[in-house]
């Protein structure tokens, strides 16, 4: 099963309630993305920066990177691009480099529409790029695209 199909499976396996990890340093944006995802029947965990996100995923520096069972298995990661410390791009790279999390789809959000930035993220394996401010229709599209291959 190739990476794309297994990424789809990762979304589909949790049936109607995928568990999403949403990463954003902006408090208002975190609240907004959480509500948008919950309105699309997702379970949501939020993190305020890349380090916290990695810790939650079990990829922290002092953690044993052995399994994706941080409480509830994470089916999708959605992250802001511009964050202090670790950017969303750096977080994406760390996720794609890890043996346990690399199959999990990653979506990048940004308030800036910069083609080189977008391409860089897609090339690194991001499933989708979303322009902020995020609306319900963006999340619907996300759900649609990531469920596209489900039977």
């Amino acid at each position: 099963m190739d990476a794309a199909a297994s990424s789809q499976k990762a979304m589909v396996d949790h049936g109607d309630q995928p568990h999403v990890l949403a990463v954003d340093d902006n408090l208002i944006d975190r609240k907004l993305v959480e509500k948008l995802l919950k309105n699309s029947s997702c379970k949501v965990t939020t993190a305020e920066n890349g380090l916290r996100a990695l810790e939650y995923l079990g990829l922290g520096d002092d953690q044993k990177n052995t399994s994706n069972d941080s409480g509830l298995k994470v089916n999708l990661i959605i992250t802001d691009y511009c964050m202090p410390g670790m950017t969303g791009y750096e977080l994406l790279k760390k996720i794609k480099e890890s043996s346990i999390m690399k199959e999990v789809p990653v979506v990048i959000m940004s308030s800036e529409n910069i083609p080189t930035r977008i391409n860089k993220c897609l090339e690194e394996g991001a499933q989708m790029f979303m322009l902020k401010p995020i609306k319900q229709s963006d999340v619907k599209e996300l759900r649609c695209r990531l469920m596209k291959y489900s039977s």
Partner: protein
Amino acid sequence: MDAIVQLQRQFVDYTTSLYRDGFLDDQFTQLQKLQDESNPDFVVEVVNLFFEDSEKLLNNLATALQQQIVDYKQVDAHVHQFKGSSSSIGAQRVKNACVAFRNYCEERDPEGCVRCLQQLKREHYLMKSKLETLFRLEQQILAAGGSVPMMT
């Protein structure tokens, strides 16, 4: 019944004017669409969070601009945050004030930045007062037993 209709009309007129005068944009409508029975105070909660957060940002900005040697990267970082949040709630004029501010940060123009901060403060308080009025109207409608018109 008349009182409710009056209030609803006031609400619609006031909301329309906020969009017309550029205080609010479509993103605010998006926020309202997210509100439901499971989260009936969602918009007020987010807006309150925004104003709490932006007070802090405004203070941080004032402090940063008062330094002997201004750290424009830091100033820009704060404005970037502010721009993000105001954009996410649909506070268009506040967002535009942030965009202008970032230009002066790039130019490393101290006077320009101070002027922008003043403008940002004005827009912030203006937005706050207008949204407070809007929410008050909503409360009055609900207290009178009516329902708040949906603005599409």
